[in-house]
């Protein structure tokens, strides 16, 4: 393990106050020995940097997929007091509400295995990759406002989903604090043509099969059964969110001087939660989060249309299991020093994992906890877990968000071509489509940490609980 870091339990580690100057609280992260072997010192430095931020409560937290990012480490979580705390785009990221959702289908593996024609049609129907624009889902200034204000509800009202989808989204797919007045004209200009597009990089659309059930009770409540075909969608707020982050980062960077805040990384630029600059960012971030929820809902609609047409199944037979945000800051109630307290939780590459009985959960999920969806890589399993009371007590209701890379994109491309990666996956029964072979090489399965190791840690630590494993059979990379 990295020098200066203390082991505090099985799979638990502490970055003590004093690791770097100015830390207000310790850093704490969850990692197995195997994952610790590939941990970058830069990630721990970033976790320590977060611990220097004003108003941080209890700990700067790292989930088991912690790795080196910018500002917060990826897999970073921190809660801030409303009185003394700050809000920072560095704790959210450029891709605001990058997130993931899962829908089930009545189909079985035999219906879709080896169906290159199905993957081709999905690939044609959902715009992906660099330069992609909305296809049949034409955007306008009016529809953009609807997306930013109402999120998933706008999409459902416009025919891109069902009302049941809304209750199966974190925050019902809408942050009520959205303020479109703090979203720049540039951001809006970028947002209009990109509704319903996947993006590139690690974003994807996957056809998967439920290959293992670990918790039959929760799986039933979530609507999952062994052998069932599902579709997972991973994307975010596209150019609109990217521009909002860029715009407000600049404002908050300047505001740091005004509020006499000094931090070790300019990307952690922040302002007090109750400052005009902090409120403006929060309103724009919430609008971007809503855009992302609407975007995923529009892609879901396209997928349902394709599956409905191909297999003669009803739209309603493809319900949403859940939709979770990975990159967001939110006001939530958590126990701090023995009292229920309203705090601002930043999750940067981390997933909300509310336990049983949490007020935000629909009644049929209240006994199980919130569904948590953890994507793997295109050759490895994804997982569905449930939120736990342990997460409420230890991580402000948070868990990991994915596997986390172990290899840079340039290394990945030098090692193996996209054609070779796709051929290897085809031999395993996984069909891959992408706008360019580089996108496949960049995202080869072994450039990621093993997803089973990462979810094993969150399960063992008790910050979420394994429900089901899903194996990919068709992948569309952005």
């Amino acid at each position: 393990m990295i020098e200066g870091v203390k082991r505090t339990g099985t799979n638990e580690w502490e970055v003590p106050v004093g690791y770097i100057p100015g830390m207000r609280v310790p850093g704490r992260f969850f990692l197995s020995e195997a994952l610790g072997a590939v941990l970058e010192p830069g990630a721990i430095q970033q976790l320590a940097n977060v611990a220097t931020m004003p108003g941080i409560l209890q700990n700067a937290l790292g989930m088991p997929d912690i790795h080196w990012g910018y500002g917060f480490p990826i897999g970073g979580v921190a809660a801030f007091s409303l009185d003394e705390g700050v809000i920072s785009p560095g704790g959210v990221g450029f891709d605001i509400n990058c997130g993931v959702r899962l829908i089930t289908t009545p189909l079985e593996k035999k219906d879709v295995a080896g169906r290159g024609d199905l993957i081709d049609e999905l690939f044609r129907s959902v715009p992906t990759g660099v330069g992609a624009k909305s296809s049949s889902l034409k955007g306008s200034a009016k529809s953009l406002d609807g997306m930013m204000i109402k999120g998933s509800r706008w999409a459902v009202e416009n025919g891109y989903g069902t009302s049941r989808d809304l209750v199966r989204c974190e925050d019902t797919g809408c942050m009520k604090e959205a303020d479109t007045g703090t979203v720049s004209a540039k951001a809006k200009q970028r947002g209009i043509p990109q509704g319903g597009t996947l993006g590139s990089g690690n974003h994807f659309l996957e056809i998967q099969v439920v290959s293992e059930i670990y918790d039959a009770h929760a799986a039933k409540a979530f609507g999952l059964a062994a052998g069932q075909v599902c579709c997972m969608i991973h994307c975010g707020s596209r150019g609109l969110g990217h521009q909002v982050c860029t715009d407000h980062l600049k404002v908050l960077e300047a505001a740091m001087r005004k509020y006499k805040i000094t931090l070790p990384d300019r990307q952690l630029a922040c302002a007090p939660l109750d400052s005009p600059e902090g409120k403006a960012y929060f309103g724009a971030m919430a609008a971007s989060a809503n855009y992302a929820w609407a975007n995923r809902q529009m892609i879901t609609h396209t997928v349902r249309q394709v599956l409905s047409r191909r297999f003669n199944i009803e739209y309603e037979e493809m319900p949403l299991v859940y939709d979770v945000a990975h990159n967001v800051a939110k006001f939530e109630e958590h126990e701090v020093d023995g009292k229920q307290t309203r705090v601002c939780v930043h999750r940067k590459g981390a997933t909300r994992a509310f336990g049983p009985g949490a007020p935000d959960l629909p009644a049929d999920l209240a006994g199980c906890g919130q569904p948590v969806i953890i994507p793997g890589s295109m050759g490895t399993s994804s997982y569905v877990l449930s939120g736990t009371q342990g997460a409420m007590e230890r991580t402000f209701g948070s868990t990991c968000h994915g596997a986390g890379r172990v290899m840079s994109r340039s290394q990945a491309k030098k090692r193996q071509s996209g054609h070779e990666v796709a051929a290897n996956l085809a031999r395993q029964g996984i069909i891959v489509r992408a706008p360019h072979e580089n996108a496949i090489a960049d995202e080869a399965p072994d450039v990621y940490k093993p997803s089973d190791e990462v979810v094993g840690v969150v399960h063992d630590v008790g910050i979420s609980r394994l429900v089901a494993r899903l194996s990919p059979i068709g992948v569309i990379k952005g």
Partner: protein
Amino acid sequence: MSFVELSHTADVRIHVRAPTLDLLFSESFEALMQTIFGKDRRGGHSKEIRIAAADTETLLMDFLSESLFICEVEGLVFTGASVVTDGKSLTAVLDGEPFDRSRHAGGTEVKGISYSGLAITRDENDYMLDILFDV
């Protein structure tokens, strides 16, 4: 070429070195374009940008962020930038062409330019910097 990609697992981190500030900016621009669109880029359409900022790092951030914006909303892909800067303001003439999916889809979208670790330094020969693109 006076930039190299450094190891970074999640994002793209580039080291840039150039004898003048003008070239440091234009090489950083080239690194950005290559990350998104690959190497097969041609000229023909020109675009001028003028920007001012409080410090040189912020000027570079603003320049690259503005370039990202233009690429996305105008559907342009640039093959080069002629930059003239005093470190607090700049004029850049970008040379490019319309986006062509058959030649420009080999890279990855850059979501934003990060301040993390961004500091422009100088030795006796060159200016240099490390810059991180969120992809």
